[in-house]
């Protein structure tokens, strides 16, 4: 199958690569670019473990073709921290015990990151709806809600 040349920014750095038109973004991120933070938990876009930020929106990269990222901006969990400083959502998940096995965590973090830009002062119920595209089998979500509130409060203070 003829490959396509694509280029995009990944966590702020320019990348270019050759992909088959049918290749999924999650596979290109994980296998070609070796950014294995984003995970694959299903193939029907239900679980959200593969959630990344594409051009300012949360997408499930298991149902996005890599060619659709051509010319775009991709942010993954590997790009959340800056200069060794954790992003408030990362800090919140650790402080509030918002993770256990860690498999859903990258997707949860990326969705929380975008969600808090869409709704900087959410209620608990708004967080639950906002994160309803991401499944967690371990935590029961209560601590995830607290983690997002922790991040929201910190970001309000300019953290």
């Amino acid at each position, binding site marked *: 199958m003829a490959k396509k040349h694509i280029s995009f920014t990944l966590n702020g750095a320019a990348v270019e690569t050759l992909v088959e038109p049918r290749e999924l973004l999650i596979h290109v991120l994980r296998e070609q670019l070796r950014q294995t933070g*984003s*995970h694959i*938990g299903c193939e029907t876009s239900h679980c959200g*473990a593969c959630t990344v930020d594409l051009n300012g929106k949360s997408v499930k990269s298991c149902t996005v073709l890599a060619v659709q990222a051509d010319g775009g901006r991709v942010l993954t969990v*590997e790009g959340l921290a800056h200069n060794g400083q954790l992003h408030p959502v990362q800090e919140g998940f650790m402080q509030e015990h918002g*993770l256990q096995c860690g498999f859903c965590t990258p997707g949860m973090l990326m969705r929380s990151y975008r969600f808090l830009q869409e709704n900087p002062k959410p209620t608990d119920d708004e967080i639950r709806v906002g994160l309803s595209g*991401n499944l967690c*089998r371990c935590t029961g*979500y209560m601590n995830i809600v607290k983690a997002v509130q922790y991040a929201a409060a910190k970001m309000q203070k300019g953290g």
Partner: protein
Amino acid sequence: MAATAEKMEREQKLEGIGCSRKRKEDPRFIQGKGNYVDDINLAGTLFSVVVRSPYAHARVKSIKKDKALALPGVHAVLTAEDLKPLKLHWMPTLAGDVQAVLADQKVCFQYQEVAVVIADNRYIAADGAELVEVEYEPLPALVDPHKAMDADAPIIREDLVGKDEAGQGKRLHNNHIFRWEVGDKAATDKAFAGAEVTVKQAMLNPRVHPCPLETCGCVASFDKVRGELTVYITSQAPHVVRTVVSLLSGLPESKIRVISPDIGGGFGNKVGVYPGYVTAIVASIVLGRPVKWVESRIENLSTTAFARDYHMVGELAADKNGRIKALRVDVLADHGAFNSHAQPTKWPAGLFSICTGSYDIPVAYVKVDGVYTNKAPGGVAYRCSFRVTEAVHLIERMIDILAQKLGIDKAEIRMRNFIKPEQFPYHSALGWEYDSGNYPAALKKVMAAVDYTGLRKEQAEKRKRGELMGIGICTFTEIVGAGPSKSCDILGVGMFDSCEIRVHPTGSAIARLGTMSTGQAHETTYAQIIASELGLPSEVIQVEEGDTSTAPYGLGTYGSRSTPVGGAASARAARKIRDKARKIAAHLLEVSPDDLDWDVDRFKVKGVPGQEKTMKEIAWAAYNNVPPGMEMGLEAVEYYDPPNFTYPFGAYLCVVDIDRYTGETKVRRFYALDDCGTRINPMIIEGQIHGGLTEAYAVAMGQLIAFDADGNLLSNSLMDYFLPTAVEAPKWETDYTVTPSPHHPLGAKGVAESPHVGGIPCFTNAVNDAFDHLGVTHIDMPHTAFNVWKTIHELGLDKRA
């Protein structure tokens, strides 16, 4: 007082037992630096995809590989014929049966493994799998286990025809696997014959699936030159996998290294050895290259370790006051096409005989028949210590049904039947020795916290208005921490577990264990145990598991056994080190070891303030100044064989409101009190309880692995199989009491499964309680809106005036 404050400060610095310290695992997981099986990237890795049966029951007439092999990038296509010369087309199961690795002439469940395609990458392997041509001759499928032993039932396991046993006792039919009986039948029957009151109820624990977010997978890498095999695998029991692989392959265990890296949830789904692992290993040995196999979600839900499928009939005999005199249980267990459930080898129905629960029942009798059907194999999984979920469900439903019949309050009937605190250690009618408990105190605390009387009053008022409100109670007793090697083994290996600790010269340490975390934070919890025992900060105690070349042999993590067994091993290994440290300290201080007192993180000379040596100082001395005749170094290993199981318990209460027109059930309140004995990290315990309750909610309210009459699976993707999102998941209130285990070195009992085991019947009891006044005795799970509405509709409650 100053001395006490100083001591407390030193204790706090250790962040040991009782401290809700943050998890040591989290920094890597929140930065995308976890290392899961699918993240393993060995040079030259090939990818394998399994060709699966579209039929539940069919003969395999022919398999044509030519087109697949002709596809560029495909390296091999393996079928049973290819594995036969290696004697690997069948494999032994933990239950004494055999399972086809790749279908040998016939398939016995839909999605069964028929062939494997090995290719350069996952896309080509998937293309290749599409090109494998398999010709099938469909056979009638056996889906209903109640028809398995009919005279004209289709024979599922032709390989067993003529064999009157399949590893677990005498078989009574071609589709029969075993009959397991426990208890005193004659005495039980007599108690029923003379009973003032009896109740009987059929109920189903339906087939469900643990569905961890990461599916199963492995990377097998065989080095032909060295003759060494390395397998990265999603296994909760890597050491057992090494033993099984050695037995299957003939390679010495010393040339096999099994590594469980980070695992994305297990819940019992990742205990067994699956055909996908075996074929990847064979392919790597044959091709001399690393081979990766990672399940899709559909494959995970279709083929690897389901849970339950227990069709139970419970009976209680009692007096008019609700005092239980006897329990009788008859179970039909659907094990699918192969008896390959993962549990202690000698227990065909696991620990199901814990079904007398928290109640002092004088006599009991249980009979379980296991049968084959044309469904995927498995059965023991899902946050449950070997059939305890089914057992607790049975007794907690039955006691409600008895209360209903007698018109006794459901809390009151429990109080009347509880094993009393002074009866511990308690010997149950079915042979268990409960270590410790205080059941009345737990239930009373919950009733006070939720204002139980007030809730019942509210319910009575709502019933007058035709509203449906249910109050569910569950006072469960678990049995975990398998187990004493005298009664528990896996393939002949006793179910001990192990810990090896090395203290380094500068006072940090590494501990390696035979258990395996799948998200429970062992790196944190074990470090806290060792911190308190050794007086070194948990922050500098590194915990490693999962690598069979470095960790001591252990049986792995399932059945809530890590804290009861691995935790005990950690404490005892640390105590061995502390004993040696005492001698070194005595040597340094020029006193007798008996003259020393242990004080948090140091030894002090009795009655001589200031004469002391900290563990950090002793660690340094262990490498340069030990007593004459003593070996250098500061390390120990412990293989801990527990004297008994542990018996965590709890009292749960759930309030539901049901819409009488739609059947929609809202969980208004769920109050969970757990007693897991000594609590190591309360934050982590609470997290485990939240997770277990959410999984219990999923099972009770929506999960079902369903089949049609032909054995077609109807619920094998996340479109059809219910996993609660943050929107559906209820909010939890947690509480605790502490009744230490008398035989565990720390008094700890294990906790992660309790909320699942106790939560499921609590939800079911709540839903049933909503219909209690209308004469409904029992409604089976799952309590989806549609199923609840069916009950409502039958009762005519949905008619609008």
